């Protein structure tokens, strides 16, 4: 009995020692990470001219600016006030429609391009390493350069207007969706592929008949998400002259047309939220239908 207690005490001691050691390393790690983060934060604050004083005086300034863009609406003259606030409503609606149209066309072109490129960018579907490598790098280049930078380049080449905006959205969408699509492709069930291959199909036919039916619902879901994202980014491409509502917003800020700013931003928010809701509804429909098909 005493011998057993002795071994128990020894084991307890050993446990306490390892526990204390583990705790020490954890604490040391947390300390080191904390110090590194604080040092980085201070260095960043220095580099970006960020000061607490600036923040304390800047935030009220920012709020003052935002508040100054609000219109003065009075209950007695509400109709006239709203009319004055949205004095250019037809023009803004047209520009917003153009913004949504730009993102639609850009998303369609980008999705088709991503669909064509994604199979050769999936490791499990392509044997040739150079083709795989090339597709991957192409997609990487298309998504790493920000769409605004593409827009600036295309505005110079194609002239001001929605065309360069659509092209910028299309290129960026190709890169982003191509990566997501190829990740979906890498999870496909391999058996249908072998089945179609065994019946003598060539590579494009295998992709069409064995891979596409498996991945299409996921692809559609990503395309809808991308469309939402593109509506948001299309709303600012006008700043560099690439069409849509952005240019109007930029001008109203530049010319200090305060109430126009809030009117346009509010319209953008409404359009973005409407697209989000619509896309979510479609996505749920598509997903629930697919779920039904698999269970029945």
């Amino acid at each position, binding site marked *: 009995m005493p011998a057993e207690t002795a071994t128990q005490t020894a084991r307890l001691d050993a446990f306490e020692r390892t526990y204390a050691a583990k705790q020490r390393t954890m604490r040391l790690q947390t300390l080191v990470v904390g110090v590194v983060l604080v040092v980085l934060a201070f260095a960043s604050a220095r580099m970006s001219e960020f000061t607490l004083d600036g923040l304390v005086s*800047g935030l009220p*300034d920012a709020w003052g600016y935002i508040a100054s863009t609000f219109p003065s609406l009075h209950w007695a003259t509400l109709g006239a006030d709203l009319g004055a606030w949205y004095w250019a409503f037809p023009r803004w609606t047209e520009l917003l429609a153009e913004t949504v149209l730009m993102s639609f066309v850009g998303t369609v072109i980008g999705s088709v391009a991503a669909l064509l490129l994604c199979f050769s960018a999936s490791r499990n579907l392509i044997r040739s390493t150079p083709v795989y490598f090339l597709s991957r790098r192409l997609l990487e280049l298309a998504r*790493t350069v920000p769409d605004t930078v593409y827009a*600036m380049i295309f505005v110079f080449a194609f002239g001001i207007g929605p065309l360069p905006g659509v092209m910028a959205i299309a290129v960026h969408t190709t890169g982003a969706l191509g990566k997501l699509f190829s990740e979906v492709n890498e999870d496909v069930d391999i058996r249908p592929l072998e089945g179609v291959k065994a019946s003598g199909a060539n590579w494009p036919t295998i992709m069409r008949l064995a891979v596409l039916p498996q991945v299409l619902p996921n692809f559609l879901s990503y395309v809808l998400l991308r469309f939402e994202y593109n509506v948001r980014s299309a709303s600012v491409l006008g*700043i560099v002259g690439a069409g849509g509502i*952005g240019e109007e917003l930029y001008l109203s800020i530049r010319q200090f047309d305060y109430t126009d700013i809030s009117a346009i931003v509010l319209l953008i928010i409404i359009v973005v939220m409407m697209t989000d809701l619509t896309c979510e509804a479609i996505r749920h429909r598509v997903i629930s239908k697919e779920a039904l098909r698999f269970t029945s």
Partner: protein
Amino acid sequence: MSTVNVGDSNELGAWRAAHPELFARPLAERWRNRLVFLALLAVFLFGLWWIDATPARLLYGSQRLGFLIRLMLPPSDGGALGIYINALIETLAMAFLGTALSSVIAFPLGFLAARNIVPNFAVHFAFRRVLDVLRGIDILIWALIFVAAVGMGPFAGVLAIAVSDLPFLTKLYAEAIENVDRKPIEAVQAAGANRLLGIRLAVVPQVLPVIVSNMLYFFESNVRAAAILGIVGAGGIGLQLSQEILVNNWDQACFIIIMMLVAVGVIDFISRRIRAWIMGAR
């Protein structure tokens, strides 16, 4: 139940006759799909017409684009390498500080927006809708607003990044908090802890990896965003880029784009390593 004679020479035909719905979608569904496709195609073609994508214009633009690419090569720093590096570091600093500020503020807000922490439906619902509204505003719009409010420079960029990330991070944090396992909370509370201690000891350890992982993702995406904020005067390398494009120094613009790509690549690599380390450490 219809019976099918297995071994029939026309087996497939029999199956088709017995279960037509397995071989072809119903006519109504097929027509609806066709109509949806045609409608989308019509919108697409109208869009092409609206944006004036004529073959002549595309050809002319492509020629100019080829000309631009020839001008871009070889990329050259034009003797301004020091300025560019400084601007790039400024960009990284803006992204880091913006992400840090946003994460710190989003952390308590995430708890407020989580259904299981704040059970009051009205508070939770109103909070979520405010976040939805804020999410509709692109980072460049925030940058325009802050440049107008606090003046040009990286400070406006930091604020734009912090404010535009806030609704996204808060929503992600709230979702992570809503998905925690309840059992540790009950265990901690059974040991006599109060509500706050329950959150600290049972909720925070569960959500911390998700939060750190999201912070890293947002830092990556903010580096890309910070690189273009300079276009509207909010600091960073975007200012240099838009200036070089404005004066047609395409070789230098290309050099800056390559610098941005390298920086983004390095940041992605580092954050992938950190994420793997965190996931391994837990």
